[in-house]
């Protein structure tokens, strides 16, 4: 079978917005604002029977008035008006469409309309995202079809596939305002009458702008096809997935939500393992994983060293590592010696590293810098996590030493978390993250992230 042509979704030469609105706050207006905010360079055609002008752009009264050669239509009308518009677009020669309207298979009345759309897609040989999608984004092409007010979307290397409107809207808003990493492609699948997760994954597999793929799915439409595609791509790019609807209660909610029919979770879980897909279980991890995959190399193994300013943290985090499948191994005698050299004589040094004495006696920057370098250098260690003590009392270090260590030990993931003053945690995050060092406010998160990255590395290097 020939590969489906999805390129025009991500690199459209021009775009028509069917249902453009002059009223601020309406989806048909916000989608135009988003396209403009992202500095899309292709032509934008707006269609609304009222004509006139919206945001300085002329408005055409009907789809028939569009020029020839339009590549992509964003149809942002009510469900009942969508089939007619899709048909008119097809007659105008438009082969690709994003169907934003909701109210289809997830409510009873919409089922018939959705069937009509399926028929049009088949008859006219169209490629469609949705319906009931919050849109898609392609930052390398400075383009988005999202109608949720997002403004400029930061460019990155990780791509997202999400079977929920929430991701491309509220979650993206959080990423843009609360984090520093960007995204490459974001695809809101909606009800999947045409493009499904297998198509999306296949496109991203060969997409040079995508280095890793993070997915949220409620159902898998063609699981055998998905397995076939995922099996191959996971050897080249990490694929992380949150698959919901794994319990009876979850499954019921999924049916009501996006008309998803969940297969038996145990088999889906087996299929994902076989495919080399790294399964995650928390919504938050969609964000954490995207951030980590954006900024960090994959670890060579699961051997972690961490430096904490508290005995309680050393114990609790060691236990956490065991639960997460991470190892906190002994370090080389030379490393132990170095750790003793930087500490007062009364304290026994090992991995994990109790850095409190060194940091408080010889300075926070000295203690962490020398301690981190000692374990980064150690051949038994694959990744390092400092729990950075940030108080005015003990002195706020310059964060540059962390950048220097990251540069010199670039093959080992280095993740920062904190203890103490929130003001400086934020300051440190805002300083380090744009320069490529991820930080996490909660001390467990670096380890959760490392466990995901380690599983990605294992999946990529798994035997045939």
């Amino acid at each position, binding site marked *: 079978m020939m590969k489906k042509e999805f390129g025009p979704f991500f690199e459209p030469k021009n775009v028509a917005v069917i249902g453009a609105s002059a009223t601020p706050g309406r989806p048909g207006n916000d989608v135009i604002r988003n396209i403009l905010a992202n500095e899309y360079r292709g032509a934008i055609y707006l269609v609304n029977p009222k004509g006139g002008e919206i945001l300085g752009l002329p408005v055409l009264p009907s789809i028939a008035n569009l020029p020839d050669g339009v590549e992509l239509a964003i149809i942002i009308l009510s469900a009942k008006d969508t089939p007619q518009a899709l048909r008119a677009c097809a007659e105008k020669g438009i082969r690709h469409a994003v169907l934003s309207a909701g109210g289809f298979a997830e409510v009873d009345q919409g089922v018939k309309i959705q069937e009509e759309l399926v028929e049009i897609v088949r008859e006219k040989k169209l490629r469609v995202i949705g319906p009931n999608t919050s849109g898609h984004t392609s930052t390398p092409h400075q383009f988005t079809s999202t109608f949720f007010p997002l403004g400029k979307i930061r460019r990155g290397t990780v791509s997202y596939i999400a079977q929920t409107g929430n991701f491309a809207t509220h979650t993206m808003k959080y990423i843009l305002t609360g984090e520093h990493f960007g995204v490459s492609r974001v695809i809101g699948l909606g009800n999947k009458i045409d493009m499904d997760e297998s198509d999306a994954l296949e496109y991203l597999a060969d997409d040079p702008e995508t280095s890793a793929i993070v997915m949220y799915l409620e159902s898998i439409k063609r699981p055998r096809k998905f397995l076939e595609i995922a099996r191959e791509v996971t050897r080249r790019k990490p694929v992380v997935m949150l698959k919901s609807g794994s319990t009876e209660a979850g499954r019921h909610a999924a049916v009501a939500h996006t008309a998803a029919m969940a297969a038996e979770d145990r088999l889906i*879980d*087996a299929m994902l*393992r076989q495919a080399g897909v790294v399964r995650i279980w928390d919504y938050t991890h969609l964000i954490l994983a995207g951030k980590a995959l954006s900024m960090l190399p994959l670890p060579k193994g699961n051997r972690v060293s961490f430096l904490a300013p508290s005995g309680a943290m050393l114990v609790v985090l060691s236990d956490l590592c065991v639960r997460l499948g991470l190892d906190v191994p002994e370090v080389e005698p030379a490393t132990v010696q170095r750790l003793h050299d930087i500490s007062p004589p009364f304290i026994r040094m090992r991995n994990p590293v109790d850095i409190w004495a060194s940091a408080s006696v010889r300075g926070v920057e000295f203690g962490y810098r020398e301690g981190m370098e000692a374990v980064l250098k150690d051949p038994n260690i694959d990744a390092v996590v400092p729990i950075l003590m940030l108080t005015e009392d003990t002195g706020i270090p310059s964060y540059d030493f962390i950048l220097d260590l990251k540069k010199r030990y670039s093959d080992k993931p280095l993740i920062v978390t904190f203890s103490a003053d929130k003001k400086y945690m934020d300051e440190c995050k805002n300083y380090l993250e744009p320069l490529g060092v991820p930080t996490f406010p909660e001390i467990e998160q670096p380890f959760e992230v490392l466990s995901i990255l380690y599983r990605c590395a294992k999946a990529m290097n798994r035997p045939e």
Partner: protein
Amino acid sequence: MMNLLKEAMAKGRATLSEYDSKRFLSCFDIPVCREGLAENPDSAAAEARKIGYPIVLKACGADLAHKTEVGGIALNLKNIRDVRKEGLRLMKIRGCEALLVQEMVKGARELVCGLTRDPQLGPCVMFGLGGVFTEVLDDVAFRIAPLTLGDAREMIGEIRARKILDPFRGEAAIDQEILGHVLVSLGRIGLEYENVAAIDINPLKVRPDGKPVAVDALVVLRKER
């Protein structure tokens, strides 16, 4: 071998008998215990002499999918008198068409493997802890057919009780090479034989030298529509 399936389907049977199930599986290099079919207690005694005591005697029939529940299994029979006595009793069980005489496989470890079909995922292979507690312990792993040997190895290592693979109470480590091939074969059957709806091998016993062997097996046939 194809005839086994065809004949049973033609007769409208829901399953293959235990004996035929194992004959079918052994065509795919799945190791099965030594056994012979006997029409009556006397020929069962003759079979037993060939196989060597102690033996297991089972009621065998295409509709006898659950023998334990009807008392259809006599374990560890050591002489001709016991074989005759138990044979007479088993022949009276409803659905019993013949007597199955089997070697008494030694070894403490019991595994389970099988094949099932999912409407979306197609044939799926299962592996786990077997024996009478299979459902209680619920320690199994699945893979979607076709399986590579790598898939098989991974699923074998996925069960919680994976330590059972190691040397155990004087018995050797489980031969994972053979075990892996059994799982790959089950997937192959699922893909190549549409008329096989499901397979249970329970228990797949492990001999003291670590070699797995199917001691009981059930091939479920597709319902004709």
